């Protein structure tokens, strides 16, 4: 009846996951009870859960990423403590638990923190920057988000029901094959990623279509803000790369469920093929993450320097070059497999070539600052911190692309330090910069600067205190994923790294305090004009938070930095006084399709993991029926009458006029 599921799946003998799971469960129940008792459920259902508004979906993506950041961060803290204490001892985590933790840490941080964070920011901002009212496929957008949430839910469910993979975040076979990992851990891993992978793919298709097809009047390609360009590049990579991940995991699942031999030791399976396929997705993946971050830095550096982006066309070229070349370098993840010198050298050099456009980007940000008038608000601090940190990560990355150096450093703590250097220093700093920068746009009030700056400094210092020791440990021959060790020379560095982790944790706490403090002081921090940073692109041309239709009129773009341009012209002409003719606006109706679809996908995923076949059929039929019902819908749009549009827009226009007439010095 319940397949492999029975009471032994609950880890009663392991207090840590059980207590953690119980705490989370109590927290979720408490929040749910509060929501229901206070009567917020209808609001939550109609305004958020079923929302197809790209801004709301963006916010929900970021919320998911933030919650998962706490989960992945807890894993990181546990790992750092384990390695600090497990010298000539077993530490406090047995291997089967430690191995789950590092696997879950990697999986969660990449798929359920970094991905939803950048996709959330793109969702929130790109339609605004393009001057349009929504993304190309609003309901599909909701489906994408909820499927991602399904993946996150399944991964976290493995904490208390069964186990997670003990194979590392890429589940290399043959270790991940049934003979060496007979438990449900790898199944949790693979099905979570299959389901959330579908979500990511539809998000990618959606954003590519949005950028290519839905730009406002006059917004031609070479007038798009840099963030739109990096969004385009990143989502083209998603569309090209995620099917590879899906196919690879499908093959692994066929091996595990139906006795196929794609990657087994026996019967002609080939583990090297898995390595190639997973990295053919995996390397573009890191650019999927970091390109949007590059876009955010471009926006932030330009805005806070009070200058247009230096070398805009060069930046576009560099972005697209990275997009293309990132598909040609995957082999540098396994130089040590014995491919031969020609192959290694060619892929090594290809990997270095990516450093050229990346270097160009750094220099262009540098020259954007040159001659600027730089305001060091929190987003700008993250950006300068990023430039310094990322350059170090770039250096070690190019070093790892030199095959003979990689022969010493592959899979070492040096490598661990390197990719954290680029993912924390690049993607996470970018996500935080974007969060601080666009928060007022999303919620209508700014974040507290004092706590924001504290968060930056603790995170920045904490990062170096944590990861410089790991670089050093790597130079001392320490390899990754060690549950315990006997080498005395590694010990002090592991202790310093644990201290660094504590500093990083303080940074995260500051960030949480910042949000709480800002919500309490929201009246004082209110952004009435919609343009708190003296911005340059179109998202600042509407109110904060923007009305559901984003713009009462589709803006008319006449150059780069569209809004900056408008402000400059408005000043000369002391703002157009003519009353515009407001018109009815058609907007997509909210739809529970995404949520219901994900509900059934969760059931199906859980059932597949535990071999509960009747439930698989039930979930599958449910998801299919949801799709059919949606496909047969009659009304998918509603009309906002012109008077309502006018009422909403006039309020914002008044505030903005005051701002423009005050800002005489722009």
């Amino acid at each position, binding site marked *: 009846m319940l397949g*492999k599921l029975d009471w032994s799946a609950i880890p009663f003998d392991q207090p840590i996951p059980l207590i953690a799971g119980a705490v989370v469960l109590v927290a979720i129940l408490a929040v749910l009870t509060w929501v229901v008792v206070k009567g917020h459920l209808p609001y939550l259902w109609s305004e958020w859960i079923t929302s197809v508004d790209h801004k709301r979906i963006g916010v929900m993506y970021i919320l998911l990423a933030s919650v998962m950041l706490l989960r992945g961060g807890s894993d990181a803290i546990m790992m750092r403590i384990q390695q600090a204490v497990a010298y000539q001892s077993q530490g406090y985590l047995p291997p089967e638990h430690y191995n789950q933790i590092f696997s879950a840490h990697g999986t969660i941080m990449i798929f359920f923190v970094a991905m939803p964070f950048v996709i959330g920011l793109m969702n929130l901002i790109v339609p605004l920057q393009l001057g349009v009212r929504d993304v190309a496929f609003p309901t599909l957008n909701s489906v994408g988000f909820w499927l991602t949430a399904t993946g996150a839910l399944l991964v976290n469910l493995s904490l208390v029901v069964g186990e997670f993979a003990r194979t590392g975040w890429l589940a290399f076979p043959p*270790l991940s094959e049934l003979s060496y990992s007979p438990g449900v851990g790898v199944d949790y891993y693979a099905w979570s990623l299959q389901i959330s992978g579908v979500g990511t793919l539809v998000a990618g298709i959606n954003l590519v279509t949005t950028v290519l097809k839905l730009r406002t009047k006059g917004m031609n390609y070479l007038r798009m803000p840099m963030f739109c360009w990096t969004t385009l590049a990143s989502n083209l990579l998603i569309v090209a790369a995620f099917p590879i991940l899906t196919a690879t995991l499908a093959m692994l699942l066929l091996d595990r469920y139906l006795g196929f031999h794609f990657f087994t030791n026996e019967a002609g399976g080939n583990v090297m093929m898995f390595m190639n396929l997973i990295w053919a997705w995996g390397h573009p993946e890191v650019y999927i993450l970091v390109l949007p971050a590059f876009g955010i830095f471009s926006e932030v550096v330009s805005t806070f320097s009070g200058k247009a982006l230096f070398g805009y066309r060069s930046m576009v070229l560099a972005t697209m070059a990275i997009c293309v070349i990132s598909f040609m370098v995957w082999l540098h993840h396994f130089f040590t497999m014995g491919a031969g010198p020609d192959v290694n050298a060619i892929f090594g050099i290809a990997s270095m070539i990516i450093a050229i456009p990346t270097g160009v980007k750094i220099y262009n940000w540098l020259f954007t600052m040159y001659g600027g008038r730089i305001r060091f608000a929190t987003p700008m601090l993250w950006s300068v911190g990023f430039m310094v940190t990322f350059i170090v990560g770039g250096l070690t990355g190019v070093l790892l692309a030199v095959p*003979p150096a990689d022969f010493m450093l592959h899979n070492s703590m040096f490598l661990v330090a390197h990719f954290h250097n680029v993912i924390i220093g690049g993607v996470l700093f970018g996500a935080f910069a974007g969060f601080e920068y666009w928060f007022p746009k999303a919620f209508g009030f700014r974040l507290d600067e004092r706590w924001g700056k504290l968060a930056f400094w603790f995170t920045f210092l904490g990062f170096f205190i944590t990861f410089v020791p790991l670089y050093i440990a790597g130079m001392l021959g320490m390899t990754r994923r060690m549950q315990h060790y006997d080498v005395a020379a590694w010990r002090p560095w592991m202790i310093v790294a644990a201290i660094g982790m504590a500093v990083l944790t303080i940074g995260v706490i500051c960030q949480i305090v910042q949000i709480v403090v800002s919500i309490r002081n929201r009246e004082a921090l209110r952004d009435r004009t919609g343009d708190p940073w003296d911005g340059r692109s179109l998202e600042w041309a509407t109110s904060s938070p923007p009305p559901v239709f984003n713009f009462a009129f589709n803006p008319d773009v006449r150059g780069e930095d569209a809004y900056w341009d408008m402000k400059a012209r408005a000043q000369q002409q002391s703002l157009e006084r003519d009353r515009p003719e407001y018109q009815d606006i058609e907007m997509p109706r909210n739809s529970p399709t995404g949520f219901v679809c994900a509900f059934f996908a969760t059931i199906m995923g859980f059932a597949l993991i*535990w071999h509960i076949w009747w439930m698989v059929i039930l979930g599958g039929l449910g998801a299919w029926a949801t799709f059919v019902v949606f496909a047969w819908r009659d009304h998918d749009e509603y009309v906002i009458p012109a008077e309502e549009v006018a009422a909403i827009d006039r309020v914002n226009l008044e505030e903005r006029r005051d701002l423009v007439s005050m800002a005489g010095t722009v």
Partner: protein
Amino acid sequence: MNLLDPQGPVAAANSTILVDSVFIMLVIVVPTIFAILGFAFWFRASNPKARYQPDFVYSGRVEMVVWAIPALTVILLGGVAWIGSHQLDPAAPVPGTGSPVRIQAVSLDWKWLFIYPDQRIATVNTLTVPAGAELNFQLTSSSVMNTFFIPQLGSMIYTMNGMVTKLNLRADNEGKLKGLSAHFSGDGFPDMMFDVNVISPLAFPDWVAATAKSDAVLNEDSYRKLMQQGIEKGKPAYRLEDPRLFDLIANQHIPPGPGPELISDAGRPHSGGHDAR
């Protein structure tokens, strides 16, 4: 296990390339970091001396320089990578004194088996080699992937079931080194560290002769016992019965090692590794 304290020519060349590459990059990275901090500081909004140039958004000359600097660096490093990859190909011979020593390494769950086919001996978790001689490694795995790595001798390489990888090394100085597996392979993975004894070429034959007197015999049967999942705390040494044992493993004549023994059908199987501890 310091990578910058190499004990053989391969490690020495690897670490030279490593250090050289870092310095080549530091030449541009350090000034860039200073420029970032310097520009950010000088052009702060509160500095009245800094000139505001909002129209400085394009300069062909600057563009050329910013594309050229990373490009030139990469051309230089690309040369290093190309030459280095060829000279330091793990399969390339590393000339040494005396006759080369053939060693066949097998990664097991979770220990290392070193077979000396010419000497007809085998050891577990200890690798004994003569200083100065060329060491020809052939490597495979009994089950999952691992990576054979002696940090102070250089170049690591994967071990994979059903396949043989090649690696040539040389240890120049007598002494004790450490090796490890650098690819995660399951619950007993951290216990896959092994000792490397580099002894004088004169003492090597004596060590071989002493080991060959071992009571324990390595043949297909004892190998099958050895490949069960578990951690080996001792350092057993064997007389090798059949010098073709490695080939039998590599061409899967002996099937791949079994995984964990299933105690229950539930989601959380208990692994052999944990029990062995």
